[in-house]
């Protein structure tokens, strides 16, 4: 059975791109999508996905906050941060907060899958 992924990003374009990468691999199905941190937390509680891809900079609740909230609810949540170049400090903060790994935009399908495969298996 393919693993379930929740995609969190405020840009529809980025969500579509990640969705395509995941679905085309045949190893994942998209359980749901969220456009901000608050939605992400609510969706996580409802869907219990295996992996979350989490954008960092989003309106309302940002990705780091959302990551912390989700981990409060489920300490074993597997969250992969999606970062832009130059956001190293934010990524480090997320990892310190409990995110499992990260991918950097612009995405390459190969790298995204490598990271998500590792996190999903770990």
């Amino acid at each position: 059975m393919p693993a379930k992924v929740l995609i969190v990003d405020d840009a529809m374009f980025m969500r579509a791109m990640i969705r395509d990468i995941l679905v085309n691999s045949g190893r994942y199905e998209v359980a749901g999508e969220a456009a901000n941190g608050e939605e992400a937390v609510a969706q996580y509680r409802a869907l219990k996905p295996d992996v979350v891809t989490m954008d960092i900079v989003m309106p309302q609740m940002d990705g780091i906050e959302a990551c912390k909230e989700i981990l409060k609810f489920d300490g074993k949540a597997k969250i992969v941060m999606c970062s832009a170049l130059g956001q190293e400090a934010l990524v480090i903060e997320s990892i310190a907060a409990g995110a499992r790994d990260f991918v950097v935009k612009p995405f390459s399908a190969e790298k995204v899958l490598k990271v998500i495969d590792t996190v999903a298996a770990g």
Partner: protein
Amino acid sequence: MDLAKYIDLYLNDGREHVGALRAGLSAKHLTEDTVNELFRHAHSIKGMAASMGFERTAALAHAMEDLFSLWRQGAKAAEPAIAACSRALDLMDAHMDAVAATGSEAAEDQVARDCAAALKREAGASAQGQPGGRTASAPSPAPSSGRETGGRGAGEGAPSPPSTPLATIYVSIDPTSALPAARLLIVSQFLEKAFGACAMEPPLRDIQSRNLKRAKFLVPWRDGAKGKVRLLRDLPEVREVVLETKPAGASASASDNLAAHVRITAKELDAFLSNAAGLLHHLNFLEAGLSREERRRHRFWLERHRAMLGQLFGQVLTARLVPFSLVTERLARLVRDLSERTGKVLRFDVIGADEEVDRALLERLADPLSHLLRNAADHGIESASERVAAGKPEEGLLSLEIRRDGEALLISVSDDGRGLDAEAIGKAAVERGLISAAEAARLPRERMLELITLPAFSTRNSVSEISGRGVGMDVVRSAAEALGGGLEMDSSQGKGTRFTLVIPSAATLTQVLVFGWEGLPRFGIPTSQVRHIYPLSAYPLVWAGARRCLQDGETLIPVLGWRLGPVGKEGCGLAVAGPSGERVILASEVFESERVVIHPWGSPLGQIRHWVGGALLSNGEIAYVVDGRALCRDEEQHGGQEAGNVPDAG
């Protein structure tokens, strides 16, 4: 209380104490003095760690302190006890690394528990006057395994009980990784999960600032751990994994400790830097000597070589950078002392303490800044009753602000005290014969204030009563000027004073514009000081009264008298920012700008304020670097317009 800002200071001092302990313990003979020193260092670490809330480090230091205390009372310093101390120091190092990387200590694991137990046991053994603690199965090397017998090889001085050895894992990540520090942090977390503990080196902060793609990880080694290391190779972006395990019992070899931290003087770093720069110059020469054909043939290696030298240069440079906060801690202590001594309530605000500056520069700034703060507290800030009468809060405010403006570093010390009395300063200057009454009447306010930085003025004690400033402002000014900068001041009576040290270059590497006059050596000026370059073919020089000016549309920019060769229509005017507006330097040749290392002149050239130093250009030539700002100021003060210069050609 926010302890985070003390972390750097804690690590700095803490590592020094750990290093001193290590050196002391490795001495051939432990004299009484050495043991006293050991005790003091352990005691210091205990106090510092406990006040930072780092209980594990504090507990280790405490156990050591107990042991040393027994040694002081005459108990023999037995080999196993020394080995246990050595392991405790390694753990302290690992804790400090973890503090540097994450802000908290490394996890408590079996290694740490074993170590603490060993220290306690050795203390017990010392108390009985025995070199105890050795397990029955261990070979018994000599009748006495006391320190004097020497020889502390692996096996012989095997610590007991057999503890978990440490393994070193070197991990390199993909050089194209976008966020290498975050990637190495993931690796570190993976290892911590797999092995229970993991210390990363260098600390995360350094990896981040130096953009490193490789780190060393220390983990406790257990059976079956090899498989876990194999898993490491499957992590994203992990390129290379090299594992180094040591024979059990030799977990803390001296060489390992040396590798972890090496102390080096700023002078040695300077030598590295100048050698690296020298190598770049040599490469230029070598390349220039090659024929085009040869150059093409060796292009790959030439480029690799240049890239690596550039990298080396950058690494040495960043190794010299330290946060300004290293000195602000000391200044905060000074203000506390001043507050006590003067009986005035003082608040000290620091803005921009995170700004990173060259260590050597920081060291040279500490004194002038202390001087300014001392003056502000002594003379600037009024007594509590005066302040209340003037409608100010009782608490006097001293603030230190560090900010960057392009290449320049601006450091201000301000107070909200009584301010400078320009009129009184002028009067005093006339009395002392420094200026005439007529000059005093003409002098603008800000120039009047500058008078207090003249040595002849500020050595008089009475100044402090008149101007609110004590002795030594000339010292502050010359310190700033020795760094190629200057001192600016701004004061409003009754409201306060602000002194700003303007350092044209905050790092050893400065971007300079290279210019000159035909047939003469080249000159450089920090590009941060150059506002505009005017080709003289398009911008005319005109006379405005007795002043020669460059005309840019409606604007007339006065020309500086400083000119060492003839300048014709093909020359350029460099507009330089001076303390009272722009001035133009006329040069016959302007070349590219380059990043250079400025070597300050020694005396007597160093005493000429507008000469900053010399620099090696990438073509191997020497450039004389001038401070445009000082040049403008000097000419304004001496009014030397076009005196003694070479006449223009044509």
